[in-house]
């Protein structure tokens, strides 16, 4: 990717989202935006900057601070024939509207026997770092993924952000769009063109025969760095980026694990009852023979603390990942020492509560 990136246009994750939204608004007159502060100076970290000016107030509706009513109204408008993009600054605000999302968004198509479709996209930003704390840094992708009728998409790279935004906006189902705040800084090659494609369950970031890693969002970036280091030591990883965990289709994972016979999952949220648990359960149900016990990485089962002292070791990182892989693949101590050395050389020492420059890409 980086070879091409010198020639091709690179834009940020933020710009990619904005481009996806802007082009979709141009293509489909039924689409409009709803949210709190849709026209404010910050404009969702710039992701919807200038859209109100370009498309007018009729396409960009400022809503009172009332997520339950707001999302209910978005669902109602979409049932009546519109398409709505809802912008919420943190995933936690959507909990006010959980009733609307679970009962009305997810079930209207089912109950109406296909007559009411609910083409809405709810953008939920996942935070992390700088002491965001217990109620500003959850992701809840496992919760939304456990509801039939909802779709969940989680981009990791700028090109995916644009692609998934467009595909979500042209999907006939309610889509929960989970967007990690730290990814906003990343840059990458993004196709200028508007293109609708079918939602893929996952994208393959790296091909390898030794071990399968399934991750998404920022964890895919963490894993990619590890994968690139391991490559230097002839350890080949199949890295699957699960961009669409609901509805969950794991065919790619089964294929991969049959080949590698080792599986490791990384959850964006808590490990307990996370996506990793479901993925591994399905692999085990398929009776795919494994060379090592399956491993799940995820957040410990306590809320995210604010203090920089308390988040030490809380989030998945490259080192944690490497230690797990060492055990699974029975990597010899001497070799592992060299791997760790290479990893450390590539990873600057930075505080754990600010984004690693690696996350900026370009990807």
């Amino acid at each position, binding site marked *: 990717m980086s070879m091409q990136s010198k020639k091709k246009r690179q834009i940020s994750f933020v710009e990619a989202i904005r481009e996806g939204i802007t082009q979709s608004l141009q293509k489909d007159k039924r689409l409009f935006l709803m949210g709190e502060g849709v026209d404010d100076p910050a404009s969702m970290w710039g992701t919807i900057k200038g859209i109100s000016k370009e498309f007018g107030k009729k396409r960009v509706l400022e809503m009172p601070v009332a997520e339950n009513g707001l999302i*209910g109204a978005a669902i109602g408008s979409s049932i009546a024939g519109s398409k709505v993009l809802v912008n919420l600054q943190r995933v936690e605000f959507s909990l006010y509207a959980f009733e609307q999302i679970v009962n009305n968004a997810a079930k209207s198509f089912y109950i109406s026997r296909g007559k*009411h479709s609910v083409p809405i996209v709810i953008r939920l930003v996942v935070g992390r770092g700088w002491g965001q704390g217990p109620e500003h840094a959850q992701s809840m992708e496992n919760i939304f993924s456990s509801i039939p009728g909802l779709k969940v998409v989680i981009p990791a790279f700028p090109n995916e952000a644009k692609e998934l935004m467009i595909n979500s906006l042209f999907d006939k189902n309610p889509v929960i769009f989970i967007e990690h705040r730290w990814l906003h800084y990343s840059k990458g090659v993004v196709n200028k063109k508007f293109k609708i494609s079918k939602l893929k369950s996952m994208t393959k970031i790296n091909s390898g025969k030794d071990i399968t890693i399934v991750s998404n969002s920022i964890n895919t970036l963490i894993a990619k760095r590890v994968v690139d280091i391991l490559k230097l030591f002839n350890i080949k990883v199949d890295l699957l980026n699960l961009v669409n965990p609901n509805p969950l289709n794991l065919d790619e994972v089964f294929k991969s694990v049959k080949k590698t016979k080792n599986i490791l999952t990384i959850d964006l949220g808590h490990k307990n009852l996370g996506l990793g648990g479901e993925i591994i359960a399905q692999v085990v149900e398929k009776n795919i023979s494994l060379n090592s016990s399956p491993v799940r990485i995820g957040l410990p089962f306590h809320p995210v603390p604010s203090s920089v002292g308390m988040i030490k070791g809380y989030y998945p990182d490259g080192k944690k990942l490497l230690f797990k892989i060492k055990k699974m693949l029975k990597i010899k101590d001497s070799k592992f020492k060299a791997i760790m050395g290479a990893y450390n050389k590539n990873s600057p020492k930075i505080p754990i509560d600010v984004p690693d420059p690696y996350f900026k890409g370009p990807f």
Partner: protein
Amino acid sequence: MNLLKLFHEMYLIRSVEKKITSEYPKGKMRCPVHLSIGQEACAVGISQNLKPEDIVYSNHRSHAHYIAKGGNIAKMISEIHGKKNGCVNGVGGSMHLQDLKVNFMASIPIVSSSIGLSLGAAINQKRLKLNKITVVFIGDASLEEGIFFECANFASLHKLPILFACENNLFSVYTPIKERQIDSNFKRYADAFKIPYKRVDGNNIENVFNVSKKIIKNIKNGKGPHFIQMDTYRYLEHCGPNEDDHLNYRNKNEVSFWKKKDPLKVLENKLLKKYKREKLSYMKKTIHRKIDQIFSNVLKEKYPTPNDAKKYVYAE
């Protein structure tokens, strides 16, 4: 105002629901039913002022609203029986009635949940200048939910074409309104958002019809949301086909006070001054025949299968 028509509609609803109460013990209707017996005037009085293209959203107690808007009764009875021919092919039961042919969009059985959807429908009507309105039937307990306030604020701010049609039947399940709210006059809620408010005797069909007629005209003329409080009373238990006054959660005098004001009785007495008894009897007989036919047909209908249950989870 065609009083005979109003009576016909109320009698039709009452008779369908009475038939449900008599048939329910046979165990063929295997889902909860929240009957509207006693509250028919609210549904009919408002819906008679609506056009088919106007949108209605209802709640768990939806039978009267569905029939009053012109919903297909045979499909409703099939739905309650869990049959494939039901208005939503058996996935919803009594609490999820809808008939899109008459824009009876949905019944949402979670208190106040439909208010958000109605707001969205009204936003659409306003944005696209459709010159239609949305009516959301809510109850007294709906005003205890936060989403009502969220939506009333927005509806008023943007002058949306929505009517909050509130049936105050004085009880939330077994709990009287005086244990839940500081006053049973809901004007304060409408005033808070500068929404025009009217209170009517919800058992007096002429009253409901005339007042809502003016209100609906105002809404169509762009005067924004309105709130109508209709005081009324349910005769049967909150959920189910029986009376439950032996539980003594309601004052006996209160029950008899409201039954004396029965919306059908009041109108029938008035009609008998103008029309011959035979005319009404003939109307009633025709209604009963139609309903009996529907209830006998439904027994021959097929059940949907577990395979049908897998369909329509996602739109392609």
